[in-house]
């Protein structure tokens, strides 16, 4: 019993170890040992580019700590005359909407991620391992639907939300985002690589499909499930168009949509705009700093199947 399980198991290391490298910081870079003129030039170019990429953040951060007077003064300087202040953040937080929007974004993105991962993993297992009537048709339909841009469905989807009485509800935000055919494809491809012998051994012992799925396949798929979750979560967190269409009630807006209303309401409050933007950016940046490896790995492995 143990022997066949370990043997194909070691075969599994190939894909996971390979994917691990995507997140690994170094070690596989070619020509690492040579640091000639090219190396110095490369470092120089990289430093310039990295600074260029970080500047918009830094400028916005600096502006968010200015007083409104300093933020509107010409010419603009990095260090304001009046010194840095927390005024803009206080003003934004006093309006009280940001924590609500943060909760809405978090809640809807988590529920979307859970539904997508659960339903996609189940159907991917069926595609990979089970024989059922209509499987081929369902597979073709799923793959073909990857090409459908969600943006072309906004009108009929909104119509549907009206019919279901889901406009201005969490379900209205969540359900239309809860399908990701590309992720089904990614998971099915992964399941196809898992040696079937592992399951056969358990099934000879009488374990049912459901049991095999939960006790054997899912634990083995943790890395890819993590990757898919990260991909779906970022997409849902940052989605603008659909929540923008389906919600109107200020207490139901997600962070990206709420920010748009702030922008239009306080158009000339530069420091407050930047403070709100920084506050909205912070959660995902913190998540990224904690899970950098997993996120980079996740994007690298699902990227082609996603988008």
């Amino acid at each position, binding site marked *: *019993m143990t022997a066949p*399980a*370990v043997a194909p198991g070691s075969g*599994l290391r190939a894909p996971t170890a390979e994917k691990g490298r*995507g997140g690994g910081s*170094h070690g*596989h*870079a070619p*020509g*690492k040992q040579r640091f000639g003129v090219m*190396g110095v030039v490369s470092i120089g*170019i*990289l430093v310039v*580019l*990295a600074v260029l990429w970080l500047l918009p*953040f830094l*400028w*916005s951060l600096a502006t968010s700590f200015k007083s409104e007077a300093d*933020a509107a003064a010409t010419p603009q300087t990095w260090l304001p005359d009046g010194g840095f202040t927390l005024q803009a953040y206080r003003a934004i937080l006093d309006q009280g909407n940001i924590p609500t929007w943060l909760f809405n974004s978090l809640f809807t993105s988590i529920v979307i991620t859970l539904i997508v991962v659960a339903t996609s993993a189940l159907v991917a297992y*069926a595609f990979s391992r089970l*024989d*059922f009537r209509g499987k081929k048709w*369902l597979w073709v339909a799923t793959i073909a639907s990857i*090409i*459908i*841009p969600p*943006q072309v469905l*906004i*009108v*009929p989807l*909104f119509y*549907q939300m009206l019919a279901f009485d889901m406009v201005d509800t969490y379900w209205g935000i969540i359900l239309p985002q*809860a*399908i990701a055919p590309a992720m*089904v494809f990614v998971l099915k491809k992964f399941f196809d690589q898992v040696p079937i012998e*592992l399951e056969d051994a*358990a099934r000879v*012992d*009488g*374990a049912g499909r459901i049991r095999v*799925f939960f006790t*054997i396949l899912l*634990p*083995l798929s943790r890395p890819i499930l993590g990757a898919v979750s990260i991909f779906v979560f970022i997409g849902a967190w940052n989605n*603008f*168009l659909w929540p923008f*269409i389906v919600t109107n009630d200020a207490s139901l807006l997600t962070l*990206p949509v709420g*920010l748009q209303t702030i*922008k239009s309401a306080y158009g000339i409050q530069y420091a407050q*705009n930047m403070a709100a*933007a920084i506050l909205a*950016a912070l959660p*995902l940046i913190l998540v*990224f700093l904690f899970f*950098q490896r997993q996120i980079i790995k996740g*994007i*690298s492995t699902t990227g*082609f199947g996603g*988008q």
Partner: protein
Amino acid sequence: MTTTTVTNPAATADRSQATAGDRAGSRGPARKRPGGHGENRIGWGFAAPFTILFALFLVWPLLHGLYLSFTGQSLTGQGGELVGVANYAEAFADAAMWRSMLNTFWFTLLSTVPLVVVALVLALLVNTGLPGQWLWRLSFFLPYLLASTVVSLFWIQLYSPTLGPINTVLATVGLPQPAWLQDPDTAMIAVVVTTVWWTVGFNFLLYLAALQNIPDQQYEAASLDGAGRWRSLWSITVPQLGPTTGLIVILQVLASLKVFDQIYQMTNGGPAGTTRSTVQYIFESGFTGYRFGYSSAISYIFFAVIVVISIAQFSISARNRKGAQR
């Protein structure tokens, strides 16, 4: 990590042996025969949750949208009667629709080239094994994590004609200072620059992963043959990245065609409609013009364009791959 994943299933499988006996008696035979009745039922059991959502929120809206495109439906619920191809006829004669299509293509062309080239250059530079790997990844990928509204707020400020640091710098070096987002000549370029800054990190990561999958032995063999770094770059790295580049271009073109967020937020399609994208035109016809039928018709025209472009791209890349194999 690897050891636990390998031993875990074995252990659980062993444990399941104990409970197996009593279950095997009643439902065993159905399970032993793949493709049998039991399998059909259980297969649909696994597929059902996805299939239901798929049917409700993808297939149905897709069909309903097609139907709506042949009606005069409005948001208020009036005009639901069939009007034949009137919406399509109107769309094909609608200068604003064509304008939005051209804007979309123009944006796609302007953005795809730098989003692929810059991503490749960044990945090649980072992949030379310089110290501080996490810092480079962080710098270039971080913007991708920002919501479009955050990006727009940042860049509206940066592009501000009087207060923006960009024009401050241009003024100090004595160059002209355009109004960027308010100037029809520069608005699209400005939006493209923002888009490159925002999303290049995604393609950068894909390239980085592909670069790390090129076997070291190839470089070692090349360097034994006396090939320098430039030589290795052109004769190993670039050809090896061919398929990756093909996929990145395909994905990027499709992503760029769907542009809406940052343009809507930064210029609202202006000035004078010079940046209005097709998705924005769909959105506006439906949700500010309340013309669901007309909006659906444009959606379908746009969808058809995307299908044609995708098929063209995939067949080109398939032919290239076949050519490379020969």
